[in-house]
């Protein structure tokens, strides 16, 4: 049944190409699509180009020639930026990868349950999760910090949270609250997508004797790949760039994350824009790789035809 869906998928992928050969009207329409799309891409893409060009300037060039790019190019900005973040990049990788994988795993399980199960308290529990998105973070910062400090049985604390520094100054203070907070958004989006999957697929598998875990792992998750990828992107972006929480929670220089390293370029009286932008470019490279990979999961016609099976 699943295999059949996959073969249909391949068929679906070749379908539009076959159509295109049919008419030249189609080709004209393609052009009519490409033109506005290219314009929109250019406009949307501009900030990224700006980032690249500014990363090669020094401050006088930034102020005197904001929009243009003229020699001399300051490649040394990249060396400065690398010097500022290279100690921290490993930490950011550890924190981000753990947080995102944890978030996606936990959220997928809950989202599936909310989308396809009926059980008492479903609405209430869903709103109990969703409402977490509605509390402004600036209000919870101080109490969350004190809670990390007094987290029981961690970092030298006793059962009552006294005696040590709790989870402070450890990556767990980023990862665990990161998963707890990040899953909320993920559950909300995933639930909606998993709810829109055709019930016939699940019905058929149930008849074949598949248990809940199989339904989840073999049907719901594979069919939600594009949206899981989107969630991974959003989670990575927010963890990767998070600044205030890592800044206040980590005190050891060896544990800090790269957004803290980049913040040094913003002084109290002046900002060195070139190295700052170079730092942003360097920090975005792993993200770009992730994007290239994730965008491959969006393959058209994923479920087309599966219903007839």
């Amino acid at each position, binding site marked *: 049944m699943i295999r059949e869906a996959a073969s249909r998928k391949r068929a679906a992928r070749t379908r539009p190409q076959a159509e295109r050969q049919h008419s030249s009207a189609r080709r004209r329409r393609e052009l009519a699509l490409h033109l506005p799309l290219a314009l929109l891409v250019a406009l949307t893409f501009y900030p990224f180009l700006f980032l690249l060009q500014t990363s090669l300037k020094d401050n006088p060039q930034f102020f005197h020639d904001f929009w243009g790019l003229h020699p001399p190019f300051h490649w040394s900005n990249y060396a400065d930026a690398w010097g500022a973040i290279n100690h921290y990049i490993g930490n950011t990788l550890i924190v981000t990868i753990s947080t995102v994988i944890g978030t996606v795993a936990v959220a997928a399980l809950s989202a599936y349950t909310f989308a396809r*199960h009926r059980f008492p308290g479903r609405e209430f529990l869903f709103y109990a999760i969703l409402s977490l998105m509605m509390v402004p973070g600036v209000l919870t910062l101080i109490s969350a910090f004190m809670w990390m400090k007094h987290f029981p049985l961690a970092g030298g604390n006793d059962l009552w949270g006294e005696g040590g520094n709790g989870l402070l100054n450890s990556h767990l203070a980023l990862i665990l609250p990161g998963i707890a907070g990040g899953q909320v958004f993920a559950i909300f989006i995933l639930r*909606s997508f998993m709810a829109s999957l055709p019930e016939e697929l699940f019905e058929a598998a149930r008849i074949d004797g598949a248990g809940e875990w199989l339904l989840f792992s073999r049907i719901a998750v594979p069919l939600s790949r594009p949206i899981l990828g989107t969630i991974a992107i959003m989670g990575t972006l927010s963890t990767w760039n998070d600044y205030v929480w890592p800044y206040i929670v980590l005190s050891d220089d060896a544990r800090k994350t790269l957004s803290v390293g980049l*913040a040094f370029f913003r002084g109290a009286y002046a900002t060195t824009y070139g190295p700052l932008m170079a730092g942003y470019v360097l920090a975005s490279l792993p993200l770009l790789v992730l994007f290239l990979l994730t965008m491959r999961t969006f393959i058209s016609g994923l479920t087309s035809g599966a219903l007839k099976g």
Partner: protein
Amino acid sequence: MPCFAVLAWRRASCTAWVIFLACLGLFGGAARAETVLTVFAQAYTPEISTGDNPKPLHEMTRLAHAFERLHPGVRVRFLKNPVGDYRTWMRTQLQGGMAPDIMWAHSTWCNEDAKYGWFVNLDPYLAQPNPYCAPGQRGAKRWRDLFYVDATNAKRAPDGHLYALPIDQVETAIYYNKDLFRKAGVEPPRTWAEFIAIQKRLKQAGIIPFLMTAQQDMRLSWARAILLDQLWADKLPRMDVRTTGAIGFPGVDDQEFIRAYEKGIFSVRDPRYREMLRLLKEWSQYWQPGALATQDDRLFRLGRAAMWWDGSWYAPQIARDPMRAFEFGIFLVPPLTKESSPYASGTGARGVGGATSIQYAITNTAVSGGKLELAVDFLRFLTAPQNLGPLVSEAGLFLPNVPGLEGSPLLKPFQKVLQAGHVRFGGEMAGPVYSDRSFRVLQGYLGGQYTEEEALARLEKYLAAGVDQTLKDNAAVWRFGNDWEIRPAPPSFAQAASASARRPWGLLIGIGIALAALLGVTLSLPGPRRTLRRHKTSYLFLLPTFALLILFSYYPIASALGHSFTEWKGSGTATFIGLDNFREMWQDDVLRDSVGNMVKLLLAGIVLSLTVPLLVAEMIFALGGERARYLYRVLFVVPMVVPGVVTLLIWGFIYDNNLGLLNHALDTLGLGGWKHAWLGEPGLALYALMFMGFPWVGGFALLIYYAGLQNIPGDVFDSARIDGATGLARFRFVDLPLLMGQVKLLVVLGFIGGLQGFQTQLLLTNGGPAFATMVPGMHMYQNAISFDRMGYACAIGVALFLAILGITYLNMKYLRSSVEYQP
């Protein structure tokens, strides 16, 4: 055989590791025997490149090594800390007992926090000799004699004690473009009247006379201070009643100001105050258009504006700019004379700076770690003239707070201000809320939004509230006799305050017991137990989510909810005040304005962020080749890596009135008449913010729509085509109904984000001009972070929360998607 080799190698490497770790342990043990003094030195932090000092400094390292040689077994470690969000960092570290032993603490913050017992009162130590000063020299007998007296005393806390030791001073002056002055045939002015006259001449010559950055309050408050100080001189003796003693300094302190206000010596209705407003308005016609939204110095740097008012820290920046195409000079703000105003006192203009740049405080960490004496000794060592001089000169941003020491040669002109002394009465001192409100009223007045009468009425109202709040905040240390006569203060904060940190246990145990009881009761009933057994898988699947939420998310939120019924500063004790915060919200006119702004922004934002990405997703989906689709997806998503601050920076430069791309384009097209100060005009700023983000192709929304389109089974499209539904008809009758789930999702997320959001305002408009772009999220943020009114901020947060919850519930209920599976 090779297998064994690997095994043997592994064993060997294991042994090596064990030995290595053991060594590490030994050295670690040895390292622990020495005392480590941790210091956050802010602008003087050595060996790191920062925005303020791109070339790393070394002087602090040298001093630390010299200090370590004098104290065997002691190591000084400098913390690397960014200054963004430093106030929040400082707060949390001090409250958690994690702060460095010595830290930079701006005197305003330090004096606010002193009441929690986080800082050491330095007065007893300052009265003792500083052994690092040469015998017979200043400071050798009494440490405090080293420093400028008035500037240092002005930094005392409300209890009269000094908690933050200012090691340097910052000064301001007017930088001017000598070439433009020559072109217009003018000279640096000697009086305020000449100052205005030369600006008139410059303007006639087609030159922008003065670059004013009034998006933030700093320069407007400088201007107000300089003018008020001279206009008020005749009334000063009646206000500045404490001029001697440890607390006294020539100048009005907070307590003296409150006294003057209550006794009616100070009023914003005073003709002198109106005179200040008039002079300011007269001057403002020579500022560049759009001054209320300007944030940077580019107009001066590019040689377009003739003058720019800035601090000593600007001197190295402008002097070392290789692209500067003009000669610059520095003059001090000229004095007001009778020519300009009948109230001019002839005192001369005084400095607006003072010891406000780098101050070091000794923290509770040093006390609990038994390092108090050592920390004091390090500060003594640091401030000894032979050490302080080179330290302050190397950074080149400020002047040493020790008479006789000169800073960097570039800062020579600023030395004169130190001799002239500082502003003695620079405006109302009624707490952070009033400072912000009065700045906004001033913006509104200068921008033509308020008449003088309207401005004064608003100021009066805000000032009364500010004075009440200030009196309440300082009730523990301020004593007034009959007729507001100032009485001596009780013992200092540090002794009065209990240094106990707040433990989350009370609330947590309460929540725990409540949950356990609820669970116990439910499980003891046969019905629920049966339900639980029947839906075991569902609950099991939800377990990880709720375990994490209960451990990490619900406590901070419960705390915020609970504090909305209290008066709380974010630290210290919270006083239960019932519904007072909510009652105050009802009368809060800033909140009312900001809700209106938010609704407009929100609706525009939701419409744009819903429609454009949908259009783009449909366009990409309609493309023939998978390769082209992949390419467009990637290209639209890549800009998501650009941090929001960079995008906002670009938009700021697009909207800038004088150098912005938009106005430049209008000029080129011959539409010069349509030019505007987009962010600087109250009627336009909000719409400029709405337009931002053009062309509004949000990567996230695009991906959501695209995934939704993919989820539509191919057969549906096939049958639609057979039925003759193509193009718009298919979009209307097939795609849109099937995408309602995605639309719902994005509407809900749009509301959640839009109701809370304020990042754009914070960076681009500061909520202004006046209150034109203020939104509830920013109002809440200001109360929480800048105003120290955490309780009130929590109440706003709760109101926002309820609003969002209600809207979300309605959205989820009525925006039903036809394709969603309803179990």
